């Protein structure tokens, strides 16, 4: 086989750019910029105050350096914090044709006539939401699914009650920044006893140059409700790095269940590591009620830098948290990702399944914390962290932390590292499979446990994405 193990096709098919007139604020960050963002979104005073408090806190913080990542410092004054496509019409239900075409190209039709069956989509373009589908169906059930900006205006009491209660603005450097300048994202509210009839989905698209995307998503599931939520992301190919710092908060009350799935395919930079998205994300779920369930499933396939630890705080007794992750890094990508499972309630259970796949010259690290508090009796955790290496120049690391303060806890941890071997590929090729199919079979087998957590169409997409990412990467 060829020795050129690093040659990965750089055909990021979402790398196009949409020419569109924008309404942007000048680059840089200060209180005036935050006031402008808040004013553009017609926010109430309390929201602005919250943003400013977050900003003032952020100013006093240092950028965290503990992750196994290497990148030049981010110049926060060289970023544009708000960019929105100019509205051509005053009718809020009318979607701009240019934008609709962009999302169509990304496989996300927004027009009601050809919207995706079984999935309600909120489409976010740079700093604003440009449309949400399936609204009537959801409204009938009392489900609120809209952009966070709209929720702040239309449902201030709900937003005020829950925003920042899982990830406070003092939580960490990037969460503080996000709290100060967040622009859009989704808000979902599932009332008591309602099982959401369709999957809810947000599609994030970064388009404008030198613009940061600071999405904020808040999902609240009332007692005995259920929702499955999907998130997808892409951005144009550019040779300059762009910042994406998101915060996602999930709240599950008694017997509620939230399933949150992400396929992250931000532009990862080119072969030499030039360009790509810096992805600094704080995602956290709070099992606030008894017998509640929260699961995170993620397929991380893009971004130059990934810093992301979707976590679950299990406060309610008998609640459970899960984290299923496939993180694939190629070329010079770097990922430091994992989870935190915090057991506070009795009989709480958590599951962690992490599959890291590294190719090229990439660095892929799993970092996870399992914490059992002193008063949490009979808690269980099962963790399985496997790494697969493709070629000889990449690396994989596992940093598991266990802090158990209650002796009744049962914690299991398994970890393996394997290499896609020449013998495996030869074996499959000798049965008639092409090299690409052989690699894809090995990798999909490896990540199978995670893929089966995804809704079917999503898992098909995720498998295709993985195949595309790893094409030509076996030496």
């Amino acid at each position, binding site marked *: 086989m060829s020795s050129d193990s690093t040659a990965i096709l750089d055909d990021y098919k979402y790398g196009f750019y949409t020419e569109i007139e924008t309404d942007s604020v000048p680059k840089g960050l200060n209180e005036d910029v935050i006031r402008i963002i808040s004013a553009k979104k017609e926010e109430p005073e309390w929201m602005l105050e919250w943003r400013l408090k977050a900003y003032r806190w952020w100013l006093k913080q240092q950028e965290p350096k503990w992750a196994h990542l290497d990148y030049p410092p981010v110049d926060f004054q060289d970023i544009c914090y708000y960019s929105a496509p100019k509205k051509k019409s005053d009718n809020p239900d009318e979607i701009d044709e240019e934008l609709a075409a962009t999302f169509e190209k990304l496989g996300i039709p927004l027009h009601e006539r050809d919207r995706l069956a079984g999935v309600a989509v909120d489409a976010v373009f740079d700093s604003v939401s440009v449309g949400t589908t399936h609204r009537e169906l959801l409204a009938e059930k009392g489900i609120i699914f809209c952009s966070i900006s709209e929720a702040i205006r239309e449902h201030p009491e709900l937003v005020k009650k829950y925003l920042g209660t899982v990830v406070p603005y003092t939580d960490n450097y990037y969460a503080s920044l996000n709290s100060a300048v967040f622009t859009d994202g989704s808000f979902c509210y599932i009332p008591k006893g309602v099982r959401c009839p369709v999957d809810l989905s947000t599609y994030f698209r970064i388009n404008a140059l030198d613009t940061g995307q600071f999405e904020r998503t808040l999902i609240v599931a009332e007692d005995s409700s259920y929702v499955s939520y999907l998130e997808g992301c892409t951005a144009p190919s550019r040779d300059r790095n762009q910042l994406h710092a998101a915060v996602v908060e999930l709240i599950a009350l008694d017997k509620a269940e939230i399933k949150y799935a992400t396929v992250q395919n931000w532009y990862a930079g080119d072969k030499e590591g030039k360009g790509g998205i810096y992805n600094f994300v704080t995602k956290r779920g709070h099992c606030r009620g008894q017998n509640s369930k929260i699961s995170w499933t993620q397929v991380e396939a893009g971004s130059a830098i990934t810093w992301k630890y979707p976590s679950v705080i299990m406060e309610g007794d008998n609640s459970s948290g899960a984290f299923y992750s496939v993180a694939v890094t190629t070329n010079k990508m770097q990922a430091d990702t994992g989870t935190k499972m915090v057991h506070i309630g009795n009989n709480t259970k958590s599951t962690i399944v992490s599959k890291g796949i590294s190719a090229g010259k990439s660095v892929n690290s799993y970092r996870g914390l399992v914490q059992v508090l002193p008063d949490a009796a009979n808690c269980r955790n099962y963790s399985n962290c496997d790494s697969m290496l493709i070629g000889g120049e990449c690396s994989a690391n596992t940093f598991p932390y266990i802090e158990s303060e209650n002796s009744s806890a049962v914690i299991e941890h398994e970890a393996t590292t394997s290499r896609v071997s020449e013998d495996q590929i*030869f074996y499959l*090729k000798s049965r008639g499979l092409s090299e690409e199919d052989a690699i894809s*079979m*090995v990798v999909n087998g490896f990540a199978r446990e995670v893929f089966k957590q995804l809704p079917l169409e999503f898992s098909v997409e995720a498998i295709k994405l993985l195949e595309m990412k790893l094409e030509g990467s076996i030496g």
Partner: protein
Amino acid sequence: MSDTQTYFEIRNLHAETEGIPILKGVDLSIKQGETHALMGPNGSGKSTLANVIMGHPAYEVTDGEIIFMGQNVLELDPEERAQAGLFLAFQYPVAIPGVSVAKFLKSAHDACHPELKSKSSEFLKELRENIKYLEVDDSFINRYLNDGFSGGEKKRMEILQMLTLKPKFAVMDETDSGLDIDALKVVSKGVNKLAGPNFGLLVITHYERILRYIHPDHLHILIEGKIVHSGGPELVKKLEESGYDWVREQFGQEVLVG
């Protein structure tokens, strides 16, 4: 030359791995419908020959040819060799965790026989019949390929693959090693199901006993990368009458373990 003349032919084959020559001029010709046995001590190059026939990237062919049904095999990638009808039953099959036997066999079948792309239901029916024939448990098809399989299960899996892919020419690389007598009978039964006028087989072995179940038409003895002795029907007849002891006497005890 007609097909029966040049069904499978190796001419003056030289191959090396990591710069060390292993095969030093192998010649071998197998006609359609024939079964040949290749014997030899450890390190004589038997497995290298099997891997070179299938195109393992760790071996470099430095001279010679392999011709199969008029095609120069050495110009083909391993997957093209499989698609052309060549098959290798591996001595040490590798595991592919997370990939079910059924999914793997369907993909391999469709890759080798694009013209026969069968419906899943028909495919499964045939698969279940083959599994039964090989006396394997039905749950086999949902297990992950070779993952946690015992030695005997792995060998049956190789034969199951052979029955599924229906190759025109197969090489069995010490499939009999490590098998108990019952497993050996099952494996032989599987092989004999494929044997016929449209099939060719090269059985590489180290043990006499498999030859009692798979009756070769020709025998070859490989020592230090060269075939030092070959014989046809007259030799087989001699073997039937007086056994294999003369092989050991002439070429050493390690050529063929009794």
